[in-house]
Protein backbone atom coordinates (compact mmCIF):
# COMPACT_ATOMS: atom_id res chain seq x y z
CA UNK A 1 0.00 0.00 0.00
CA UNK A 2 3.03 2.29 -0.14
CA UNK A 3 1.91 3.68 -3.46
CA UNK A 4 -1.23 4.99 -1.82
CA UNK A 5 0.84 7.53 0.11
CA UNK A 6 2.16 8.89 -3.16
CA UNK A 7 -1.26 9.26 -4.70
CA UNK A 8 -3.03 10.74 -1.68
CA UNK A 9 -1.45 14.24 -1.89
CA UNK A 10 -2.83 14.42 -5.43
CA UNK A 11 -6.19 12.80 -4.83
CA UNK A 12 -7.12 14.84 -1.76
CA UNK A 13 -6.97 18.30 -3.39
CA UNK A 14 -8.69 16.95 -6.50
CA UNK A 15 -11.55 15.41 -4.54
CA UNK A 16 -11.86 18.59 -2.47
CA UNK A 17 -11.96 20.69 -5.64
CA UNK A 18 -14.68 18.48 -7.13
CA UNK A 19 -16.74 18.66 -3.95
CA UNK A 20 -16.24 22.41 -3.98
CA UNK A 21 -17.60 22.51 -7.55
CA UNK A 22 -20.65 20.57 -6.41
CA UNK A 23 -21.14 23.03 -3.55
CA UNK A 24 -20.89 25.98 -5.93
CA UNK A 25 -23.48 28.31 -4.42
CA UNK A 26 -22.91 27.33 -0.82
CA UNK A 27 -19.98 29.47 0.37
CA UNK A 28 -20.20 28.20 3.93
CA UNK A 29 -19.80 24.60 2.79
CA UNK A 30 -16.99 25.57 0.42
CA UNK A 31 -15.05 27.26 3.22
CA UNK A 32 -15.44 24.22 5.43
CA UNK A 33 -14.34 21.95 2.59
CA UNK A 34 -11.30 24.13 1.99
CA UNK A 35 -10.10 23.87 5.57
CA UNK A 36 -10.91 20.16 5.94
CA UNK A 37 -9.33 19.31 2.59
CA UNK A 38 -6.07 21.08 3.31
CA UNK A 39 -5.94 19.62 6.83
CA UNK A 40 -6.25 16.14 5.30
CA UNK A 41 -3.59 17.06 2.74
CA UNK A 42 -1.27 18.08 5.56
CA UNK A 43 -1.88 14.78 7.34
CA UNK A 44 -1.20 12.76 4.18
CA UNK A 45 1.96 14.79 3.52
CA UNK A 46 3.18 14.02 7.02
CA UNK A 47 2.45 10.33 6.45
CA UNK A 48 4.39 10.48 3.19
CA UNK A 49 7.40 12.06 4.90
CA UNK A 50 7.37 9.43 7.64
CA UNK A 51 7.17 6.65 5.05
CA UNK A 52 10.03 8.10 3.02
CA UNK A 53 12.20 8.50 6.12
CA UNK A 54 11.51 4.94 7.13
CA UNK A 55 11.78 3.19 3.77
CA UNK A 56 13.96 5.43 1.62
CA UNK A 57 12.88 6.74 -1.77
CA UNK A 58 9.54 5.33 -2.85
CA UNK A 59 7.99 5.28 -6.29
CA UNK A 60 4.68 4.28 -7.84
CA UNK A 61 3.67 3.70 -11.43
CA UNK A 62 0.36 5.22 -12.45
CA UNK A 63 -1.71 2.69 -14.35
CA UNK A 64 0.74 -0.03 -13.34
CA UNK A 65 2.78 0.55 -16.52
CA UNK A 66 6.37 -0.20 -15.62
CA UNK A 67 8.86 2.69 -15.73
CA UNK A 68 10.07 4.17 -18.06
CA UNK A 69 6.93 3.57 -20.12
CA UNK A 70 4.30 4.82 -17.73
CA UNK A 71 4.06 7.91 -15.59
CA UNK A 72 6.08 7.55 -12.43
CA UNK A 73 5.52 9.24 -9.12
CA UNK A 74 8.56 9.45 -6.87
CA UNK A 75 9.07 10.79 -3.37
CA UNK A 76 12.44 11.32 -1.78
CA UNK A 77 13.00 13.36 1.37
CA UNK A 78 13.29 16.62 -0.56
CA UNK A 79 10.00 16.21 -2.38
CA UNK A 80 8.24 14.89 0.72
CA UNK A 81 9.44 17.95 2.66
CA UNK A 82 8.15 20.24 -0.08
CA UNK A 83 4.77 18.48 -0.13
CA UNK A 84 4.62 18.93 3.62
CA UNK A 85 5.35 22.63 3.19
CA UNK A 86 2.57 22.81 0.57
CA UNK A 87 0.20 21.18 3.06
CA UNK A 88 1.10 23.63 5.82
CA UNK A 89 0.73 26.61 3.50
CA UNK A 90 -2.55 25.30 2.11
CA UNK A 91 -4.00 24.99 5.58
CA UNK A 92 -2.70 28.37 6.74
CA UNK A 93 -4.00 30.19 3.68
CA UNK A 94 -7.35 28.39 3.79
CA UNK A 95 -7.87 29.52 7.37
CA UNK A 96 -6.72 33.04 6.60
CA UNK A 97 -9.03 33.18 3.58
CA UNK A 98 -12.03 32.57 5.83
CA UNK A 99 -11.65 36.13 7.06
CA UNK A 100 -10.05 37.80 4.10
CA UNK A 101 -12.00 36.59 1.06
CA UNK A 102 -14.86 38.71 -0.18
CA UNK A 103 -18.17 37.49 -1.53
CA UNK A 104 -17.20 38.10 -5.12
CA UNK A 105 -14.14 35.86 -4.94
CA UNK A 106 -16.13 33.14 -3.25
CA UNK A 107 -18.82 33.27 -5.91
CA UNK A 108 -16.34 32.70 -8.74
CA UNK A 109 -14.80 29.63 -7.19
CA UNK A 110 -11.93 30.84 -5.03
CA UNK A 111 -11.79 27.75 -2.81
CA UNK A 112 -11.90 25.05 -5.52
CA UNK A 113 -9.24 26.98 -7.45
CA UNK A 114 -6.99 27.04 -4.41
CA UNK A 115 -7.28 23.26 -4.30
CA UNK A 116 -6.45 22.97 -7.99
CA UNK A 117 -3.38 25.13 -7.35
CA UNK A 118 -2.32 22.81 -4.53
CA UNK A 119 -2.94 19.82 -6.80
CA UNK A 120 -0.60 21.26 -9.41
CA UNK A 121 2.05 22.09 -6.81
CA UNK A 122 1.97 18.64 -5.17
CA UNK A 123 1.97 16.99 -8.58
CA UNK A 124 5.07 18.93 -9.61
CA UNK A 125 6.86 17.88 -6.43
CA UNK A 126 5.99 14.22 -6.80
CA UNK A 127 6.24 13.46 -10.49
CA UNK A 128 9.15 11.53 -11.93
CA UNK A 129 8.39 12.28 -15.55
CA UNK A 130 9.38 15.42 -17.40
CA UNK A 131 6.27 15.68 -19.55
CA UNK A 132 4.02 14.97 -16.61
CA UNK A 133 5.82 17.82 -14.88
CA UNK A 134 4.77 20.08 -17.76
CA UNK A 135 1.18 19.02 -17.26
CA UNK A 136 1.32 19.80 -13.53
CA UNK A 137 2.90 23.15 -14.30
CA UNK A 138 0.01 24.02 -16.56
CA UNK A 139 -2.57 22.86 -14.01
CA UNK A 140 -0.89 25.13 -11.49
CA UNK A 141 -0.64 28.01 -13.94
CA UNK A 142 -4.25 27.94 -15.08
CA UNK A 143 -5.39 28.00 -11.46
CA UNK A 144 -2.98 30.82 -10.66
CA UNK A 145 -4.02 32.87 -13.71
CA UNK A 146 -7.61 32.82 -12.59
CA UNK A 147 -6.76 33.53 -8.95
CA UNK A 148 -4.66 36.49 -10.02
CA UNK A 149 -7.22 38.02 -12.37
CA UNK A 150 -10.21 37.33 -10.17
CA UNK A 151 -10.84 40.75 -8.65
CA UNK A 152 -11.30 42.36 -12.06
CA UNK A 153 -9.66 45.65 -11.07
CA UNK A 154 -7.63 47.47 -13.65
CA UNK A 155 -4.23 46.97 -12.03
CA UNK A 156 -5.03 43.31 -11.49
CA UNK A 157 -5.69 42.95 -15.20
CA UNK A 158 -2.35 44.55 -15.94
CA UNK A 159 -0.59 42.20 -13.53
CA UNK A 160 -2.45 39.18 -14.87
CA UNK A 161 -1.53 39.92 -18.48
CA UNK A 162 2.17 40.19 -17.66
CA UNK A 163 1.98 37.02 -15.62
CA UNK A 164 0.12 35.09 -18.33
CA UNK A 165 2.42 36.24 -21.12
CA UNK A 166 5.70 35.50 -19.34
CA UNK A 167 4.57 32.18 -17.98
CA UNK A 168 3.27 31.05 -21.35
CA UNK A 169 6.62 31.87 -22.91
CA UNK A 170 8.27 29.80 -20.20
CA UNK A 171 5.87 26.95 -20.94
CA UNK A 172 6.67 27.14 -24.65
CA UNK A 173 10.41 26.97 -23.83
CA UNK A 174 9.82 24.06 -21.51
CA UNK A 175 7.79 22.22 -24.13
CA UNK A 176 10.42 22.81 -26.80
CA UNK A 177 13.09 21.57 -24.39
CA UNK A 178 11.08 18.43 -23.68
CA UNK A 179 10.61 17.78 -27.39
CA UNK A 180 14.31 18.18 -28.17
CA UNK A 181 15.29 16.03 -25.22
CA UNK A 182 12.97 13.28 -26.38
CA UNK A 183 14.45 13.52 -29.85
CA UNK A 184 17.97 13.11 -28.47
CA UNK A 185 17.49 10.60 -25.68
CA UNK A 186 14.23 8.87 -26.51
CA UNK A 187 12.76 8.92 -23.02
CA UNK A 188 11.23 11.44 -20.65
CA UNK A 189 11.28 9.49 -17.42
CA UNK A 190 13.68 11.45 -15.24
CA UNK A 191 15.43 8.41 -13.82
CA UNK A 192 15.78 6.88 -17.26
CA UNK A 193 17.09 10.17 -18.63
CA UNK A 194 19.65 10.23 -15.84
CA UNK A 195 20.81 6.71 -16.71
CA UNK A 196 21.15 7.40 -20.40
CA UNK A 197 22.80 10.78 -20.05
CA UNK A 198 25.28 9.91 -17.30
CA UNK A 199 27.14 7.37 -19.43
CA UNK A 200 28.04 9.69 -22.30
CA UNK A 201 29.79 13.07 -22.36
CA UNK A 202 27.26 15.76 -23.15
CA UNK A 203 28.02 17.30 -26.51
CA UNK A 204 25.94 18.88 -29.24
CA UNK A 205 22.31 19.42 -28.34
CA UNK A 206 22.24 18.29 -24.72
CA UNK A 207 23.88 21.41 -23.21
CA UNK A 208 21.60 23.55 -25.38
CA UNK A 209 18.58 21.73 -24.00
CA UNK A 210 19.92 22.19 -20.50
CA UNK A 211 20.19 25.94 -21.07
CA UNK A 212 16.70 26.05 -22.58
CA UNK A 213 15.24 24.27 -19.57
CA UNK A 214 17.29 26.42 -17.20
CA UNK A 215 15.78 29.52 -18.78
CA UNK A 216 12.26 28.09 -18.68
CA UNK A 217 12.44 27.21 -14.99
CA UNK A 218 14.28 30.42 -14.19
CA UNK A 219 11.31 32.34 -15.54
CA UNK A 220 9.02 30.33 -13.30
CA UNK A 221 11.33 30.72 -10.31
CA UNK A 222 11.92 34.45 -10.99
CA UNK A 223 15.69 34.19 -11.30
CA UNK A 224 17.69 37.11 -12.74
CA UNK A 225 17.35 38.18 -15.57
CA UNK A 226 13.87 36.72 -15.83
CA UNK A 227 12.41 37.99 -12.56
CA UNK A 228 10.68 41.18 -13.70
CA UNK A 229 7.22 39.71 -14.13
CA UNK A 230 6.99 38.82 -10.45
CA UNK A 231 7.13 42.29 -8.85
CA UNK A 232 4.95 43.54 -11.70
CA UNK A 233 2.10 41.16 -11.05
CA UNK A 234 2.12 39.72 -7.54
CA UNK A 235 1.41 42.90 -5.61
CA UNK A 236 -1.96 43.35 -7.30
CA UNK A 237 -3.60 40.22 -5.90
CA UNK A 238 -5.33 39.80 -2.53
CA UNK A 239 -2.94 39.02 0.33
CA UNK A 240 -4.01 35.38 0.76
CA UNK A 241 -3.35 34.77 -2.93
CA UNK A 242 0.08 36.42 -2.96
CA UNK A 243 1.01 34.49 0.14
CA UNK A 244 0.41 31.12 -1.45
CA UNK A 245 1.92 32.25 -4.76
CA UNK A 246 5.13 33.48 -3.20
CA UNK A 247 5.30 30.52 -0.84
CA UNK A 248 4.80 27.78 -3.41
CA UNK A 249 4.88 28.81 -7.06
CA UNK A 250 8.40 30.21 -7.24
CA UNK A 251 9.58 27.36 -4.99
CA UNK A 252 8.26 24.87 -7.52
CA UNK A 253 10.57 26.50 -10.06
CA UNK A 254 13.53 26.28 -7.67
CA UNK A 255 12.63 22.70 -6.75
CA UNK A 256 12.60 21.65 -10.39
CA UNK A 257 15.89 23.43 -11.08
CA UNK A 258 17.52 21.60 -8.19
CA UNK A 259 15.92 18.31 -9.19
CA UNK A 260 16.88 18.20 -12.85
CA UNK A 261 20.30 19.75 -12.40
CA UNK A 262 21.28 17.27 -9.70
CA UNK A 263 19.72 14.29 -11.45
CA UNK A 264 19.84 14.72 -15.21
CA UNK A 265 22.19 17.52 -16.21
CA UNK A 266 24.97 16.86 -13.72
CA UNK A 267 27.70 17.62 -16.24
CA UNK A 268 26.13 20.95 -17.15
CA UNK A 269 25.85 21.88 -13.49
CA UNK A 270 29.59 21.62 -13.00
CA UNK A 271 30.53 23.37 -16.24
CA UNK A 272 27.81 25.98 -15.82
CA UNK A 273 28.69 26.76 -12.22
CA UNK A 274 29.85 30.35 -12.92
CA UNK A 275 26.59 31.05 -14.77
CA UNK A 276 24.44 29.68 -11.96
CA UNK A 277 26.38 31.62 -9.34
CA UNK A 278 26.18 34.80 -11.42
CA UNK A 279 22.41 34.34 -11.70
CA UNK A 280 22.35 33.82 -7.93
CA UNK A 281 24.31 36.97 -7.21
CA UNK A 282 22.30 39.17 -9.55
CA UNK A 283 18.98 37.75 -8.33
CA UNK A 284 19.87 38.58 -4.74
CA UNK A 285 21.05 42.07 -5.61
CA UNK A 286 18.25 42.96 -8.00
CA UNK A 287 15.59 41.90 -5.51
CA UNK A 288 17.18 43.67 -2.57
CA UNK A 289 17.83 46.92 -4.46
CA UNK A 290 14.30 46.87 -5.85
CA UNK A 291 12.84 46.35 -2.40
CA UNK A 292 14.90 49.21 -0.94
CA UNK A 293 13.47 51.61 -3.49
CA UNK A 294 9.79 50.80 -2.98
CA UNK A 295 7.43 52.98 -0.95
CA UNK A 296 4.72 50.37 -0.57
CA UNK A 297 4.73 47.33 1.65
CA UNK A 298 3.42 44.70 -0.75
CA UNK A 299 5.86 45.77 -3.44
CA UNK A 300 8.72 45.63 -0.93
CA UNK A 301 7.78 42.08 -0.05
CA UNK A 302 7.43 40.93 -3.65
CA UNK A 303 10.91 42.24 -4.45
CA UNK A 304 12.08 40.52 -1.28
CA UNK A 305 10.70 37.25 -2.68
CA UNK A 306 12.97 37.66 -5.70
CA UNK A 307 15.98 38.46 -3.55
CA UNK A 308 15.54 35.31 -1.44
CA UNK A 309 15.30 33.11 -4.55
CA UNK A 310 18.99 33.89 -5.02
CA UNK A 311 19.93 32.21 -1.74
CA UNK A 312 17.99 29.07 -2.67
CA UNK A 313 19.89 28.82 -5.92
CA UNK A 314 23.24 29.22 -4.17
CA UNK A 315 23.17 25.59 -3.07
CA UNK A 316 22.78 24.46 -6.67
CA UNK A 317 25.69 26.64 -7.73
CA UNK A 318 28.04 25.25 -5.07
CA UNK A 319 26.79 21.64 -5.18
CA UNK A 320 28.22 20.29 -1.93
CA UNK A 321 26.01 18.40 0.54
CA UNK A 322 26.25 21.27 3.02
CA UNK A 323 25.27 23.85 0.41
CA UNK A 324 22.30 21.85 -0.88
CA UNK A 325 21.19 21.18 2.69
CA UNK A 326 21.44 24.92 3.29
CA UNK A 327 19.28 25.58 0.25
CA UNK A 328 16.64 23.08 1.34
CA UNK A 329 16.62 24.42 4.88
CA UNK A 330 16.41 27.94 3.49
CA UNK A 331 13.45 27.02 1.28
CA UNK A 332 11.53 25.61 4.23
CA UNK A 333 12.44 28.63 6.35
CA UNK A 334 11.48 31.18 3.72
CA UNK A 335 8.13 29.51 3.04
CA UNK A 336 7.20 29.91 6.70
CA UNK A 337 8.83 33.26 7.44
CA UNK A 338 7.90 35.10 4.26
CA UNK A 339 4.32 33.87 4.45
CA UNK A 340 4.05 35.08 8.04
CA UNK A 341 5.27 38.46 6.81
CA UNK A 342 2.71 38.54 4.02
CA UNK A 343 -0.12 37.51 6.30
CA UNK A 344 0.74 40.14 8.90
CA UNK A 345 0.91 42.68 6.08
CA UNK A 346 -2.60 41.59 5.25
CA UNK A 347 -3.71 42.26 8.80
CA UNK A 348 -2.08 45.69 8.70
CA UNK A 349 -3.85 46.55 5.48
CA UNK A 350 -7.13 45.26 6.86
CA UNK A 351 -6.78 47.45 9.95
CA UNK A 352 -5.62 50.61 8.24
CA UNK A 353 -6.93 50.20 4.71
CA UNK A 354 -3.55 50.93 3.13
CA UNK A 355 -0.10 49.45 2.60
CA UNK A 356 1.61 52.70 1.58
CA UNK A 357 4.39 53.26 4.08
CA UNK A 358 3.85 57.04 4.02
CA UNK A 359 0.27 56.70 5.20
CA UNK A 360 1.00 54.16 7.92
CA UNK A 361 2.40 54.63 11.38
CA UNK A 362 1.94 54.38 15.12
CA UNK A 363 0.42 50.94 15.01
CA UNK A 364 2.71 49.71 17.79
CA UNK A 365 0.73 51.33 20.59
CA UNK A 366 -2.55 49.84 19.51
CA UNK A 367 -1.41 46.44 18.32
CA UNK A 368 1.82 45.34 20.01
CA UNK A 369 1.18 41.68 19.17
CA UNK A 370 0.91 42.49 15.49
CA UNK A 371 4.14 44.46 15.72
CA UNK A 372 5.86 41.38 17.12
CA UNK A 373 4.24 39.19 14.48
CA UNK A 374 5.75 41.36 11.78
CA UNK A 375 9.13 41.82 13.46
CA UNK A 376 9.93 38.16 14.17
CA UNK A 377 9.58 36.90 10.57
CA UNK A 378 11.22 40.10 9.29
CA UNK A 379 14.30 39.49 11.41
CA UNK A 380 14.19 35.84 10.44
CA UNK A 381 14.18 36.70 6.73
CA UNK A 382 17.07 39.08 7.31
CA UNK A 383 18.95 36.26 9.04
CA UNK A 384 19.32 37.41 12.64
CA UNK A 385 20.28 34.62 15.09
CA UNK A 386 18.71 32.60 16.59
CA UNK A 387 15.89 32.74 14.03
CA UNK A 388 15.56 30.23 11.19
CA UNK A 389 16.99 32.41 8.43
CA UNK A 390 20.31 32.65 10.22
CA UNK A 391 20.97 28.90 10.13
CA UNK A 392 20.08 28.58 6.46
CA UNK A 393 22.38 31.44 5.54
CA UNK A 394 25.09 30.16 7.87
CA UNK A 395 25.14 26.79 6.12
CA UNK A 396 25.15 28.38 2.67
CA UNK A 397 27.93 30.81 3.53
CA UNK A 398 30.00 28.16 5.25
CA UNK A 399 29.69 25.98 2.15
CA UNK A 400 30.61 28.88 -0.11
CA UNK A 401 33.65 29.75 2.01
CA UNK A 402 34.71 26.12 2.02
CA UNK A 403 34.76 26.06 -1.78
CA UNK A 404 36.30 29.49 -2.18
CA UNK A 405 33.37 31.45 -3.65
CA UNK A 406 34.28 34.66 -1.87
CA UNK A 407 32.39 36.99 -4.20
CA UNK A 408 29.16 35.08 -3.63
CA UNK A 409 29.74 35.22 0.13
CA UNK A 410 30.33 38.97 0.03
CA UNK A 411 27.17 39.59 -1.96
CA UNK A 412 25.09 37.23 0.19
CA UNK A 413 26.20 39.03 3.35
CA UNK A 414 25.72 42.46 1.80
CA UNK A 415 22.23 41.55 0.64
CA UNK A 416 21.44 40.27 4.14
CA UNK A 417 22.33 43.66 5.58
CA UNK A 418 20.24 45.37 2.91
CA UNK A 419 17.34 43.03 3.72
CA UNK A 420 17.66 43.89 7.38
CA UNK A 421 17.68 47.56 6.47
CA UNK A 422 14.57 47.61 4.31
CA UNK A 423 12.51 45.28 6.48
CA UNK A 424 13.34 47.11 9.70
CA UNK A 425 12.72 50.40 7.95
CA UNK A 426 9.32 49.11 6.85
CA UNK A 427 8.62 47.94 10.39
CA UNK A 428 9.47 51.27 11.94
CA UNK A 429 7.43 53.10 9.31
CA UNK A 430 4.38 50.97 10.02
CA UNK A 431 4.58 50.56 13.74
CA UNK A 432 6.94 53.11 15.22
CA UNK A 433 6.75 56.53 13.57
CA UNK A 434 3.87 58.92 14.21
CA UNK A 435 1.03 58.59 11.76
CA UNK A 436 1.00 61.51 9.34
CA UNK A 437 -1.93 63.58 8.17
CA UNK A 438 -5.21 62.40 9.64
CA UNK A 439 -4.68 62.43 13.38
CA UNK A 440 -7.49 60.03 14.20
CA UNK A 441 -6.12 56.75 15.41
CA UNK A 442 -9.27 54.90 14.47
CA UNK A 443 -8.79 51.62 12.65
CA UNK A 444 -11.24 49.60 10.66
CA UNK A 445 -13.30 47.34 12.78
CA UNK A 446 -12.44 43.67 12.48
CA UNK A 447 -14.85 41.23 14.10
CA UNK A 448 -13.36 38.91 16.75
CA UNK A 449 -13.97 35.79 14.62
CA UNK A 450 -12.17 37.33 11.69
CA UNK A 451 -9.37 38.51 13.95
CA UNK A 452 -8.87 34.96 15.20
CA UNK A 453 -9.04 33.53 11.68
CA UNK A 454 -6.36 35.95 10.55
CA UNK A 455 -4.14 35.69 13.60
CA UNK A 456 -4.07 31.89 13.98
CA UNK A 457 -2.28 31.10 10.69
CA UNK A 458 0.04 34.09 11.08
CA UNK A 459 1.05 33.06 14.59
CA UNK A 460 1.39 29.47 13.41
CA UNK A 461 3.78 30.36 10.60
CA UNK A 462 5.76 32.85 12.68
CA UNK A 463 6.23 30.23 15.38
CA UNK A 464 7.28 27.65 12.78
CA UNK A 465 9.98 30.09 11.77
CA UNK A 466 10.91 30.68 15.40
CA UNK A 467 10.99 26.97 16.18
CA UNK A 468 13.06 26.22 13.12
CA UNK A 469 15.56 28.70 14.52
CA UNK A 470 15.63 27.51 18.10
CA UNK A 471 15.48 23.80 17.29
CA UNK A 472 17.40 24.00 14.03
CA UNK A 473 19.28 20.76 14.58
CA UNK A 474 16.59 18.16 13.65
CA UNK A 475 15.34 20.17 10.66
CA UNK A 476 18.87 20.69 9.45
CA UNK A 477 19.70 17.03 9.84
CA UNK A 478 16.65 16.26 7.69
CA UNK A 479 17.81 18.77 5.07
CA UNK A 480 21.25 17.20 5.09
CA UNK A 481 19.72 13.75 4.52
CA UNK A 482 17.70 15.16 1.65
CA UNK A 483 20.81 16.78 0.17
CA UNK A 484 22.77 13.51 0.38
CA UNK A 485 19.96 11.77 -1.48
CA UNK A 486 20.02 14.46 -4.16
CA UNK A 487 23.76 14.07 -4.64
CA UNK A 488 23.45 10.30 -5.00
CA UNK A 489 21.22 9.91 -8.06
CA UNK A 490 21.81 6.15 -7.95
CA UNK A 491 19.30 5.64 -5.16
CA UNK A 492 16.68 7.67 -7.03
CA UNK A 493 17.27 5.71 -10.22
CA UNK A 494 17.11 2.34 -8.53
CA UNK A 495 13.92 3.32 -6.70
CA UNK A 496 12.26 4.16 -10.01
CA UNK A 497 13.69 1.62 -12.42
CA UNK A 498 14.24 -1.14 -9.91
CA UNK A 499 17.87 -1.74 -10.87
CA UNK A 500 21.05 -0.31 -9.49
CA UNK A 501 22.85 1.35 -12.41
Amino acid at each position, binding site marked *: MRHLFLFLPL*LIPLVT*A*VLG*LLAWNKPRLQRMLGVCGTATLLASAAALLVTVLKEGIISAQAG*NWPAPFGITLVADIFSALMVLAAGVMGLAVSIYSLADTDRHHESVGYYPLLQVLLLGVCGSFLTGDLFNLYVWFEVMLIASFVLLAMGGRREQMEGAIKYVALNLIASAFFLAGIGLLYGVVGTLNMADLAVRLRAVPHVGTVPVIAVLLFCAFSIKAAVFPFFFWLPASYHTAPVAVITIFSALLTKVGVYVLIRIFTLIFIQETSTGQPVILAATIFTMMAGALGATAQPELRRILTFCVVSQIGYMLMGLGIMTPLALAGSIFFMLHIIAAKSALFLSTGIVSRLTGTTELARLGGLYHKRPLLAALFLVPALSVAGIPPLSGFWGKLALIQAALGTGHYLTVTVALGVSILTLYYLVRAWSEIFWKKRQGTDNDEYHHVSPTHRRQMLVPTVLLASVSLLMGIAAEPVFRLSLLAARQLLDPGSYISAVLGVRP
Partner: protein
Amino acid sequence: MQSLILSTAIRLLMPLFLLFSVFLLLRGHNEPGGGFVGGLVAAAAFALYSLAHGAEAGRRMLRVDPRLMVAFGLMTTLVSGMLPFFSGQPFLTSLWSTFPAPVIGHAGSPLLFDTGVYLVVAGMSLLIIFSLMED
Protein backbone atom coordinates in the same frame (compact mmCIF):
# COMPACT_ATOMS: atom_id res chain seq x y z
CA MET B 1 -27.27 37.00 -34.64
CA GLN B 2 -30.33 35.60 -36.39
CA SER B 3 -29.80 33.18 -39.24
CA LEU B 4 -32.71 31.24 -40.61
CA ILE B 5 -30.44 28.67 -42.22
CA LEU B 6 -28.50 27.97 -39.04
CA SER B 7 -31.53 27.81 -36.78
CA THR B 8 -33.34 25.43 -39.13
CA ALA B 9 -30.29 23.31 -39.78
CA ILE B 10 -29.25 22.99 -36.16
CA ARG B 11 -32.65 21.57 -35.24
CA LEU B 12 -31.94 18.67 -37.58
CA LEU B 13 -28.22 18.47 -36.92
CA MET B 14 -28.31 18.54 -33.14
CA PRO B 15 -29.49 14.93 -32.60
CA LEU B 16 -27.00 13.83 -35.24
CA PHE B 17 -24.16 15.67 -33.50
CA LEU B 18 -25.02 14.19 -30.12
CA LEU B 19 -25.36 10.70 -31.54
CA PHE B 20 -22.04 11.10 -33.30
CA SER B 21 -20.40 12.29 -30.09
CA VAL B 22 -21.54 9.16 -28.26
CA PHE B 23 -20.36 7.07 -31.21
CA LEU B 24 -16.93 8.72 -31.00
CA LEU B 25 -16.82 8.10 -27.26
CA LEU B 26 -17.54 4.38 -27.64
CA ARG B 27 -15.36 3.98 -30.70
CA GLY B 28 -12.45 5.46 -28.74
CA HIS B 29 -12.38 2.24 -26.80
CA ASN B 30 -10.46 0.49 -29.55
CA GLU B 31 -10.03 2.88 -32.45
CA PRO B 32 -9.40 6.60 -33.03
CA GLY B 33 -11.96 8.61 -31.12
CA GLY B 34 -12.53 8.93 -27.42
CA GLY B 35 -13.93 11.08 -24.69
CA PHE B 36 -12.11 14.25 -25.64
CA VAL B 37 -13.30 14.55 -29.24
CA GLY B 38 -16.69 13.18 -28.29
CA GLY B 39 -17.05 15.87 -25.65
CA LEU B 40 -15.96 18.54 -28.10
CA VAL B 41 -18.53 17.42 -30.67
CA ALA B 42 -21.26 17.46 -28.03
CA ALA B 43 -20.14 20.93 -26.96
CA ALA B 44 -20.13 22.04 -30.59
CA ALA B 45 -23.75 20.96 -30.95
CA PHE B 46 -24.86 23.09 -28.03
CA ALA B 47 -22.58 25.94 -29.08
CA LEU B 48 -24.16 26.04 -32.54
CA TYR B 49 -27.61 25.94 -30.98
CA SER B 50 -26.65 28.87 -28.76
CA LEU B 51 -25.32 30.76 -31.77
CA ALA B 52 -28.67 30.33 -33.47
CA HIS B 53 -30.96 30.96 -30.50
CA GLY B 54 -28.84 32.76 -27.89
CA ALA B 55 -26.92 31.54 -24.87
CA GLU B 56 -30.00 31.54 -22.68
CA ALA B 57 -31.78 29.07 -24.99
CA GLY B 58 -28.60 27.00 -25.14
CA ARG B 59 -28.52 26.72 -21.37
CA ARG B 60 -32.19 25.72 -21.33
CA MET B 61 -31.54 23.10 -23.97
CA LEU B 62 -28.65 21.68 -21.94
CA ARG B 63 -30.88 21.45 -18.85
CA VAL B 64 -27.99 20.81 -16.46
CA ASP B 65 -25.47 23.39 -15.30
CA PRO B 66 -22.23 22.82 -17.25
CA ARG B 67 -20.36 23.26 -13.96
CA LEU B 68 -22.15 20.19 -12.62
CA MET B 69 -21.17 18.29 -15.75
CA VAL B 70 -17.53 19.11 -15.02
CA ALA B 71 -17.90 18.05 -11.41
CA PHE B 72 -19.59 14.77 -12.26
CA GLY B 73 -17.12 14.09 -15.03
CA LEU B 74 -14.18 14.59 -12.68
CA MET B 75 -15.90 12.40 -10.13
CA THR B 76 -16.35 9.64 -12.73
CA THR B 77 -12.71 9.74 -13.78
CA LEU B 78 -11.63 9.72 -10.15
CA VAL B 79 -13.80 6.72 -9.38
CA SER B 80 -12.49 4.85 -12.41
CA GLY B 81 -8.96 5.66 -11.29
CA MET B 82 -9.54 4.60 -7.73
CA LEU B 83 -11.25 1.29 -8.51
CA PRO B 84 -7.91 -0.58 -8.71
CA PHE B 85 -7.13 0.48 -5.13
CA PHE B 86 -9.56 -2.20 -4.02
CA SER B 87 -7.39 -4.88 -5.53
CA GLY B 88 -4.22 -3.26 -4.20
CA GLN B 89 -3.03 -1.92 -7.55
CA PRO B 90 -1.83 1.63 -8.27
CA PHE B 91 -4.05 4.51 -9.32
CA LEU B 92 -5.44 4.34 -12.88
CA THR B 93 -4.59 0.68 -13.49
CA SER B 94 -6.97 -0.60 -16.15
CA LEU B 95 -9.41 -3.27 -15.09
CA TRP B 96 -11.04 -5.34 -17.82
CA SER B 97 -14.18 -7.43 -17.75
CA THR B 98 -13.61 -11.01 -18.83
CA PHE B 99 -16.80 -11.47 -20.84
CA PRO B 100 -17.51 -9.38 -23.94
CA ALA B 101 -20.41 -6.93 -23.82
CA PRO B 102 -22.48 -6.32 -26.97
CA VAL B 103 -21.38 -3.52 -29.35
CA ILE B 104 -18.25 -2.36 -27.47
CA GLY B 105 -16.48 -5.63 -26.81
CA HIS B 106 -14.58 -6.07 -23.55
CA ALA B 107 -15.59 -3.17 -21.34
CA GLY B 108 -13.20 -1.85 -18.75
CA SER B 109 -12.42 1.00 -16.41
CA PRO B 110 -10.85 3.04 -19.28
CA LEU B 111 -14.34 3.39 -20.75
CA LEU B 112 -15.56 4.80 -17.46
CA PHE B 113 -12.58 7.15 -17.45
CA ASP B 114 -13.38 8.23 -21.00
CA THR B 115 -16.99 8.91 -20.08
CA GLY B 116 -15.70 11.19 -17.35
CA VAL B 117 -13.43 12.95 -19.83
CA TYR B 118 -16.40 13.36 -22.18
CA LEU B 119 -18.40 15.11 -19.47
CA VAL B 120 -15.49 17.29 -18.33
CA VAL B 121 -14.61 18.42 -21.85
CA ALA B 122 -18.20 19.09 -22.88
CA GLY B 123 -18.95 20.89 -19.61
CA MET B 124 -15.77 22.95 -19.62
CA SER B 125 -16.08 24.03 -23.26
CA LEU B 126 -19.70 25.01 -22.76
CA LEU B 127 -18.81 26.88 -19.58
CA ILE B 128 -16.27 28.93 -21.51
CA ILE B 129 -18.53 29.42 -24.53
CA PHE B 130 -21.51 30.51 -22.46
CA SER B 131 -19.45 32.90 -20.38
CA LEU B 132 -18.01 34.43 -23.55
CA MET B 133 -21.45 34.80 -25.11
CA GLU B 134 -23.12 36.30 -22.07
CA ASP B 135 -22.27 39.62 -20.33
